């Protein structure tokens, strides 16, 4: 693969390396001929396949031999002569280029709308040509001006979109700030824990067992993941939600606490009527857990607050960890000042820390299969729930073991996962973003055709969250058959995940034939610096049956893995994690960017 010639990330601004003949052609004619070609571009709905025809009924025929059945016909850009091309044997397209004076090397594949250099005998690519094709495709699909503007971004490189990111500027405290920090705090090493032992600072900071309060491993597992979610941890440990401040604002008294006291049970604030704020309880928990005391912590206050928030879930029984996760994010969001709170469907992530960390935007496209008209909607999401592939039965496990045995000593006998029947997270994401034909009973009303038509639906990620939580739908409940079952099927998940192929820009691009063009979500000005790379940092696993199971969380700290089994923390080999049955996987962006902030006051 010669992708070394080009950049790894494609967007509207990248031009792949061009052969000398194309460069020469461009320097002589500019992009005028491509725009002239637009009249000849015929777009075939619903897929939008582009072809070149001088008139719609034209059948391409080789001017040299009269053949019209060859797989490829090329029209010379200089003189419009159509020639056939065959790899082996005669290529009349190549002979046309060599027999004519210089300038007839570049031709266009009339059936595929691809540029071809007849001298190099290779397909070549040009940004302006691709733009012309995409414009023809979008204008043939849409009648509404608004859709055109969302599909088409500004082409001219000079007219960049408003710069939305600022460069990182490192900060360190000056003398005065150092003095203030020193005066207002106590070094961690000076704190004692219960037994008076000096703090163990060799082991990872913030690692602490959580006591099971009675079937609360579903809660402990999620809390462990949240306690080590980098942006969330940074937020609370930087005092961005000060619980004393928050409660004072809400008119309740507060208890002063110091780090020397007994801090292994989440205790009341001393005011029974205190307004519940899950963010405050979270703040208290972060303080207690990161204190350095290594005896297990009991999140009793958190449970109490959560049960007050989610009254319908307040019962002593094993519950779903994912449901708990959604519930507390909801709870943290709800406590945001009512004046600033937007309804859920308008939440763009600036409302509360829960959404700033976890909220992304999903794009849903529904395309009419008759005319190609596409209707697009955007929805925020705090996680992505993925269904497993229909079970391959026992053969999956057997196949993967066989593969292992037969691969001993052989470097490259591994084929794609499909052939070994192993489900993968990327496979699930592929399925999540692939075009899905809506059943004939789900016909969608097409605004262009003005009747219900069969449609194709496709999901993609318009905006990635800082932290992506993938939830695997392992618990199936059939209300019809009144039974529930758990899917134990193994799912492979990577430690590093590139989300680029699932972005709206990538999905849209592939829908338009992977043309070089800025699509929805592309950032023209930061082209090569956008990273969609994520790193795994926490895995919540479920073992056992639907009725009697246990949740455990694996945490990755300084590239070492720790198993958090309620109060029991052990270090494990990464293979243990790879082999585990993932239920919720937490990935964090490798690279953070500073966003230009319009307002001074950030919650």
């Amino acid at each position, binding site marked *: 693969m*010669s*992708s070394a010639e*080009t950049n790894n990330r*494609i967007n509207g601004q*990248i031009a792949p390396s061009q052969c000398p003949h194309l460069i020469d052609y461009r320097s002589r004619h500019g992009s005028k001929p491509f725009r002239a070609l637009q009249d000849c571009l015929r777009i075939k709905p619903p897929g939008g396949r582009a072809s070149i025809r001088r008139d719609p009924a034209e059948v391409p025929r080789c001017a040299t031999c009269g053949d019209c059945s060859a*797989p490829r016909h090329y029209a010379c850009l200089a003189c419009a002569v159509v020639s056939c091309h065959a790899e082996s044997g005669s290529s009349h397209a190549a002979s046309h280029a060599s027999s004519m004076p210089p300038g007839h090397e570049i031709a266009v*594949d009339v059936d595929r709308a691809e540029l071809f250099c007849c001298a190099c005998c290779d*397909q070549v*690519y040009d940004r302006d040509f691709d733009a012309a094709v995409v414009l023809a495709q979008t204008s043939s699909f849409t009648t509404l001006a608004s859709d055109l503007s969302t599909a088409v971004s500004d082409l001219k490189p000079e007219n960049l979109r408003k710069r939305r990111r600022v460069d990182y500027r490192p900060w360190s405290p000056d003398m005065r700030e150092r003095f203030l920090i020193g005066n207002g705090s106590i070094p961690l090493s000076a704190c004692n824990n219960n037994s008076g032992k000096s703090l*163990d600072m060799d082991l990872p900071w913030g690692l602490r067992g959580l*006591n*099971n*309060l*009675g*079937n*609360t*491993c*579903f809660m402990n597992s999620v809390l462990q993941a949240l306690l080590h979610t980098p942006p969330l941890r940074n937020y609370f440990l930087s005092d961005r939600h000060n619980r004393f401040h928050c409660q004072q604002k809400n008119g309740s008294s507060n208890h002063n606490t110091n780090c020397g006291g007994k801090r292994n*049970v989440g*205790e009341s604030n001393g005011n029974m009527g205190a307004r519940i704020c899950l963010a405050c309880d979270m703040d208290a928990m972060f303080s207690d857990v990161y204190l350095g005391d*290594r*005896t*297990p912590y*009991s999140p*009793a206050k958190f*449970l109490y607050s959560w049960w007050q928030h989610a009254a319908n879930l*307040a*019962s*002593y029984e*094993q*519950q*779903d960890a994912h449901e708990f996760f*959604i*519930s507390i*994010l*909801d709870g943290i969001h709800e406590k945001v000042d009512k004046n600033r709170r937007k309804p859920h469907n308008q939440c763009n992530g600036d409302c509360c820390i829960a959404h700033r960390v976890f909220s992304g935007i999903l794009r849903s496209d529904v395309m009419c299969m008759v005319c190609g008209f596409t209707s697009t909607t955007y929805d925020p999401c*705090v996680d992505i729930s993925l269904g497993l592939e229909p079970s391959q039965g026992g053969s999956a496990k057997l196949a993967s*073991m066989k593969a*292992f045995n037969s691969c001993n000593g052989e470097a490259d006998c*591994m084929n*794609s*996962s499909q052939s070994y029947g*192993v489900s*993968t997270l990327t496979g699930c994401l592929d399925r999540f973003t692939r075009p899905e034909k809506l059943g004939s009973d789900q016909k969608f009303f097409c605004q262009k055709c003005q009747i219900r038509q069969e449609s194709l639906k496709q999901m993609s990620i318009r905006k990635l969250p800082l932290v992506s939580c993938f939830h695997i739908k392992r*618990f*199936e409940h059939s209300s019809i058959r009144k039974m*529930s079952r758990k899917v134990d099927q193994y799912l492979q998940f990577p*430690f590093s995940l590139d989300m680029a*192929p699932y972005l709206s820009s990538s999905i849209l691009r592939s829908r338009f034939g*992977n043309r*070089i063009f800025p699509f929805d979500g592309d950032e023209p000005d930061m082209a090569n610096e956008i990273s969609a790379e994520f790193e795994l940092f926490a895995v919540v696993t479920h073992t056992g049956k*639907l*009725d*009697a199971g*246990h949740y455990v969380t694996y945490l990755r700290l300084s590239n070492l893995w720790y198993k958090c089994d309620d*109060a029991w923390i*052990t270090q494990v080999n990464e293979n*243990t994690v*790879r*082999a585990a049955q993932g239920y919720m996987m937490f990935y964090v962006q490798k690279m953070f960017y500073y966003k230009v902030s319009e307002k001074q006051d950030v919650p």
Partner: protein
Amino acid sequence: MSAPNEDNLSSHSQLSSQFFENFLDSMIADVASECHRMAKLGLDRNLEEGEDELRSSVLARAQVADPSNSGKTNNGKDVHDIFGNDNSAAGNEIFKCMKCGKPTAVGKFAPHLENCMGKGRKSRPKTRSSTALQNQNRYSKGEECPDGTTEDS
């Protein structure tokens, strides 16, 4: 054009096989053109990385499944965890319930709180938060975790 049946047949089958071959060649050219574009523009997925991950996963599962390795994993509750805590006191610590003030064992706090808050054994309402509904989640019922205890229901 009239011709004997046999000639008709052979020219028909020739024609159809020719048609089929042209069609097939055209489809192959379609795929080749698409793949060529993806490769040239750097859009092709990093297959090697995916294979590496799969291979690591297969090896990991084999290692974990291997009985000779299981002795090394720390299942033992009679050993200390990384902080030197042992399991003996788990859940037995007593503290004051923040609602009613009664001393309660940590491991029995949830059932206590349920009664304390008046939830008791009422049947649970079917309603859920809208976000949970969106995700079409189903909760897993459970009886006990290894560290917890069950109350009589």
